[in-house]
């Protein structure tokens, strides 16, 4: 049984795993012959070196946070959503389709950018909900189904940007890239400040709002209690009159919807065109963020910031200092393995299973 409600040892172990993994990453950087000083300089430049770098890192963190919040929410019902990658891809497809061909650009009241986001939420929720329905109807393990749905979604996206009948931009010459048109300016996310050197978009306040609402749901409301009851003992929860299947599907809808929203933020806040490789591992990173948080929304925010800055720093280290981005991946892998294994020591303090 996870003693998630006791944050003490959990947080210590999370922090310990991260520190150990980062130290190992530094050793790796030294082993491959890159000067640690150069690597650290590049890391600092890419993360906190400028207002622009900070904003870019925060925008990344926001994407991870959304996927992570969805993960934590579903995980409360003991459902493991590993489909963030596919949910982001579907969100990206839906947001692109609506932004480009939904005639939304002229709409007032912010609908021009809100409608593509809503479409993305719906598409992601569909993808997550599908896994939830299968779980309750056919008993399909949601890990396998969300994972397979991710592969399917990634290739769907590839199909969309390769096919002229779908989202590929009109071919004007043979060099036209297999990607969508750029979305209209009015469908791009507005910035929080008017200052373009600090391009923080409205994804940040939106995500913080969602985080607060979800945290309240999970800790204060009956919803959180029921989800936890389902997670701990579905049979007992059903006896107690909880509609376990409806909650399970709803939790996956929620997780998927947040994944879809993450896709919309990536498209409308950063990339503006849909192309192959759009989701670029953000869904899996978001999953790790969710794991790292050990069930707490605050934990999600903290680890999302860590991963957002880690990823920015990783990209910068690759470009400026020639450190392969695989080093960051190794660090992430070690963190996940360490945390998975560490549950033993946390649980041993309480009653054994």
């Amino acid at each position, binding site marked *: 049984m996870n003693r998630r409600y006791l944050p003490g040892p959990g947080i210590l172990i999370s922090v310990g795993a991260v520190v150990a993994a980062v130290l190992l990453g530094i050793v790796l950087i030294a082993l491959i012959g890159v000067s640690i000083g150069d690597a650290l300089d590049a890391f600092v430049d890419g993360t906190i070196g400028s207002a622009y770098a900070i904003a870019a890192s925060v925008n990344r963190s926001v994407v991870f946070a959304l996927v992570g919040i969805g993960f934590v929410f579903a995980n409360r019902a003991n459902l493991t959503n590993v489909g963030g990658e596919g949910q982001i891809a579907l969100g990206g497809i839906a947001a692109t389709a609506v932004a480009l061909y939904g005639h939304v650009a002229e709409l007032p009241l912010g609908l021009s950018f809100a409608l593509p986001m809503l479409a993305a939420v719906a598409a992601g929720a569909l993808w997550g909900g599908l896994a939830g329905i299968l779980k309750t109807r056919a008993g399909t393990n949601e890990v396998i189904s969300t994972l397979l749905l991710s592969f399917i979604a990634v290739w769907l996206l590839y199909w969309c940007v390769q096919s002229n009948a779908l989202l590929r931009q009109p071919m004007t010459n043979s060099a036209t890239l297999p990607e969508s048109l750029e979305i209209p300016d009015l469908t791009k996310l507005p910035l929080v400040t008017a200052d373009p050197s600090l391009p923080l978009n409205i994804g940040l306040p939106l995500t913080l709002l969602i985080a607060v609402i979800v945290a309240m749901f999970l800790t204060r409301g009956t919803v959180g209690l029921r989800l936890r009851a389902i997670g701990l003992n579905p049979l007992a929860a059903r006896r107690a009159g909880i509609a376990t299947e409806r909650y399970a599907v709803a939790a996956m809808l929620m997780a998927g919807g947040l994944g879809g929203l993450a896709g919309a933020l990536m498209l409308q806040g950063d990339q503006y065109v849909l192309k192959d490789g759009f989701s670029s591992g953000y869904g899996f990173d978001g999953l790790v963020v969710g794991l790292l948080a050990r069930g707490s929304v605050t934990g999600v925010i903290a680890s999302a910031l860590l991963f957002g800055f880690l990823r920015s720093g990783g990209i910068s280290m690759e470009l400026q200092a020639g450190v392969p981005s695989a080093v960051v991946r190794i660090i992430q*892998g070690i*963190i996940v393995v360490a945390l998975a294994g560490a549950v033993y020591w946390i649980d041993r303090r309480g009653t054994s299973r």
Partner: protein
Amino acid sequence: MISAESAAVFIGSSIRLATPLLMGGIGELVSERAGVLNMSVEGMMLTGAFAGAVGSWATGQPILGLAFGLLAVLPVALLQAWLSNTLRANQIVSGIGINILVLGATTLGYREIFGERSSDEIPGFGKWAPPFLGDIPVFGQAVFLQVWIVYLGLAIAIGTALVLRFTAIGLAVHAAGMEPRAVDKSGLSVRGIRYGAVTFTGLMSALGGTFLSIGDIHTFTEGMTRGAGYLAIAAVIFGNWRIGRTIGACLLFGAATALQFQLPAMGVDIPNALLIMLPYLLAFLAVAGLVGRQSAPASLTVPW
């Protein structure tokens, strides 16, 4: 009209593409029957593919590459077994962690070891056809001329089926997944059986991985397994934890992958993406319960 030649090529490439799935699938089947779900099949295959390529490239001997691949997977398999059994970690989460770790480590290792020489051909295995079968007109060469690992894989699959069905080892594996308490009472070690089963998964997955790199295409690319490990797990579910049906599922996924190359060659205009997606789509439909009621081992993913 489909000619006999193209049908033969299609069957031959289906078998070839099914082979890595088959090996990973057989390994995973044994482990799941013993009660351990290894999401890390993907990482184990990638380890085998990478270490096999490195070993073969460094020594010039593909057989040493194969041995190297099998050796290199042992720490990965033992890590998974330790996490799932001794540490009682969440088997799914720990497996995914191992996959991320292996993907990073092999990508980094590949860049560091091969670097600019990445276009070098890596020595790989030759092909072989069994006597008589290879002489059948039209089909002989197209279907049966395969890297010998394909035949090794088939032999292991049959051997595994026999061991599972007729021996005390098979019974112990089955019982460890269904009634671990009874196994424990009988004086056998549940953990011992499960460690052994996960190690078997590792060796089989690595065999499948080395087949990918030095058997089939004679090179290594970053993350070259591209989800084959997950397909192998899906094949076990599709196969309802029975070996015959699991093998059938692997062949089906192999055939779906082969269509990618076959249909365009026949002039059929189907989006490439749809064909690449097809095995995953089939696997998804399979796990979605379109193949009937599933009967997983009772103690699957429950640590002892």
